[in-house]
């Protein structure tokens, strides 16, 4: 059974790649990037074996952080690989436990998982100088990666279930936001008491000990315990780590069992009153209608609710960090990041519509109306959030020269919006299925994800850079900064217009081809 599921996964992968050269290219690029990361980090970790114990101890906080980030990122950024959606196994006479074993094995075949396993083997090598600690490091690698992989599955499946209902979305929202702050807390805990980055005096021991008593560090702490001769601690850590893995496994199996007997459906029992506000404000032309539908989706569609969270959480993270450390640059970065993320949410907006987009094609909606409607919706949803974050940060005194930061934020939002509506008309990306697991994702690094990620990362940077430079240069000039603000607004508006026009033309010319791409855009 296990073997069968793994084989199924590879078959699906191969089919996907043979059907789309884009998929193939991005898988290769993703694989190479992952390989590069491992080639850089792996030896760096393994070489710790030639260093004194106080430095080798670094593996503990490092891998505890990896593990936590793995789980948190699956919630707020990457989602979990849903190529093998458990809901598709519903009609087969399978027990949840059998299926879970298969899916777990399949989960280890993804690029990020392979990367993590390789790095955890580097961790084993790092303990090479302490023969007694070697077996402990090996056990830690097994339990630690299991904690990460099972943790992300258990947490996302449990939350997806909770967020399926209307009231649950709020609970989910709060839970996700709190979880996102965990790495920050861990970071704060681990760095207290650590001496500066001077390698001659640096001692990772205290932070290793702290990390080893967090759930994500139980497994990774064992080799350090053994190497320092604290056998009792090692035993306790082993028991705790095994219990944690067992608990996560049980939670996941239970969620799987529920999925097999009652596949998740969209919302359920949603009845909708007659909306009068949106049409009254926006009118009833095609652009306004499309905008109104997208705005409604932001609160009706649990997939988008989770995207909204992902968008808002990281910037909040920066602002909180800034408030804690008093470093203003963090808050500014946070607001600009929020602006960029908010704009970029439109990148895979078409994938969220999926095949349903035929309605736009069939009614003869013009491409620019489609693009502009979506841009309008994002502005209405995220504009106030952006302004609020900006005003709050500014009134806390975190955004020091206020006007230049405003220029950069404004340009960042409009430019990202323009980029997203333009690029989104060419690469629709992927989205979770309607009513499916809102945390579903295609296999990491595959699909168009990679290409889109590069565009999303480099694009805004390049587009906003001129405004950034201008803002810095004129920060001292009372008149100059206002001029830059106006110019930044105009510049952003031009970029947005370009995105709407070019993206719209592309959609007009290639609507049927886009429809074909959208047929497989939901996972």
């Amino acid at each position, binding site marked *: 059974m296990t073997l069968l599921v793994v084989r199924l996964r590879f078959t699906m992968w191969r089919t996907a790649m043979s059907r789309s050269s884009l998929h193939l290219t991005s898988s290769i690029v993703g694989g190479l990037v992952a390989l590069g990361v491992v080639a850089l980090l792996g030896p760096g970790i393994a070489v710790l074996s030639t260093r004194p114990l106080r430095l080798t101890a670094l593996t503990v906080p490092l891998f505890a952080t990896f593990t936590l980030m793995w789980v948190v990122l699956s919630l707020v950024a990457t989602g979990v690989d849903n190529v093998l959606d458990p809901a598709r196994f519903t009609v087969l006479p399978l027990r949840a436990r059998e299926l879970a074993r298969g899916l777990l094995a399949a989960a280890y075949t993804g690029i990020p998982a392979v990367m993590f396993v390789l790095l955890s083997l580097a961790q084993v090598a790092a303990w090479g100088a302490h023969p007694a600690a070697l077996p402990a490091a090996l056990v830690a690698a097994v339990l630690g990666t299991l904690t990460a992989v099972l943790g992300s599955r258990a947490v996302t499946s449990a939350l997806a279930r909770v967020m399926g209902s209307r009231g649950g979305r709020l609970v989910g929202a709060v839970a996700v936001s709190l979880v996102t702050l965990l790495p920050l807390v861990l970071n704060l805990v681990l760095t207290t008491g650590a001496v500066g980055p001077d390698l001659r005096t640096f001692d990772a021991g205290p932070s290793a000990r702290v990390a080893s008593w967090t759930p994500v560090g139980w497994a990774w702490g064992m080799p350090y315990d053994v190497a320092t001769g604290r056998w009792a601690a090692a035993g306790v850590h082993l028991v705790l780590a095994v219990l944690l893995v067992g608990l996560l496994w049980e939670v996941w199996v239970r969620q799987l069992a529920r999925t097999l007997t009652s596949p998740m459906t*969209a919302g359920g029992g949603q009845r909708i009153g007659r909306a009068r506000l949106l049409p009254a404000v926006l009118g009833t032309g095609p652009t306004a209608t499309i905008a109104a539908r997208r705005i409604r989706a932001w609160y*009706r569609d649990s997939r988008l609710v989770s995207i909204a969270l992902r968008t808002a959480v990281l910037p909040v993270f920066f602002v909180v960090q800034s408030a804690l450390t008093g470093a203003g640059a963090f808050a500014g970065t946070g607001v600009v990041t929020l602006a960029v993320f908010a704009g970029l949410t439109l990148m895979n907006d078409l994938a969220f519509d999926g*095949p*349903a987009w035929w309605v736009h094609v069939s009614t*003869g*909606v013009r491409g620019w109306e489609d693009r502009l409607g979506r841009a309008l919706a994002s502005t209405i949803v995220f504009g106030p959030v952006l302004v609020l974050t900006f005003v709050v940060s500014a009134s806390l005194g975190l955004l020091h020269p206020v006007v230049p930061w405003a220029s950069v934020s404004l340009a960042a939002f409009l430019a990202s919006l323009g980029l997203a509506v333009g690029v989104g008309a060419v690469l629709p990306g992927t989205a979770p299925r*309607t009513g499916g697991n809102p945390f579903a994702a295609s296999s990491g690094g595959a699909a168009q994800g990679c290409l889109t990620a590069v565009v999303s990362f480099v694009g805004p940077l390049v587009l906003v850079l001129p405004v950034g430079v201008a803002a810095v240069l004129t920060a001292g000039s009372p008149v100059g900064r206002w001029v830059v603000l106006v110019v930044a607004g105009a510049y952003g508006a031009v970029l947005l217009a370009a995105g709407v026009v070019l993206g719209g033309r592309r959609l007009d010319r290639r609507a*049927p081809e886009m429809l074909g791409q959208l047929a497989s855009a939901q996972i």
Partner: protein
Amino acid sequence: MTDGARGEGPALELVGLVKEFRGRRVVHGLSLSVPRGSLFGMVGPNGAGKTTTLSMATGLLRPDGGTARVLGHDVWADPAAAKAVMGVSPDGLRLFEQLSGRELLHYVADLRRMPVEESRPRAEELLAVLDLAADANTVVADYSAGMVKKISLAAALIHAPRLLVLDEPFEAVDPVSGQTIRTILRRYVGTGGTVVMSSHVMELVEGLCDRVAVVAGGRVLADDTVGALTAGGSLHERFLELVGASEVSGDGLTWLGG
């Protein structure tokens, strides 16, 4: 104003349509002509290319060759004009599921730039006639298969098109609603509209349609009035004769139920 009255040619004219998927040709130079004011049925075995052909005729799938004209407008040269005069209900494509049935109708009407005073009463009337009024505020995601078919039909009808292209409109629809739809379609054709629909139910096509085309393997095997095609027999028999019934009746699948 053209308003669908451009010349007096056929309502839908397909000439030499070709479609290939990954090098495999599934529609082989298919030509069809649907006269105005007729109810045209398209039948054929699974995988015959009906959905593919109708998608190419409605601007949802680009053909690799051939032309499609809707009331004189070339679908691929002037898509906007062609789409304005036709209503489409495809098979197997989802709708915007986060909208309620009523919102979906309003959405489609607004995308087609219909005045609100006209579209809102029409939406209510369609919902009532198709027995969807009680579920007008339920999101389409929660609709049953038949309800989805009906709301899709309503969305195709709301702008009173001159040509209706329906892919399996009766699939999963209950007998009462089925009867309503038949009445609607007949009345629509009576007032000069044209319907092109595909179906697997021979009795329905025989009783409802004026003309039938039998399609198999991406080619038209027969295209005639129902009377001429059946020539005394039933459409069912004629279909099996044309397409060639496979002989599994006696021997195959003996293990089933054994």
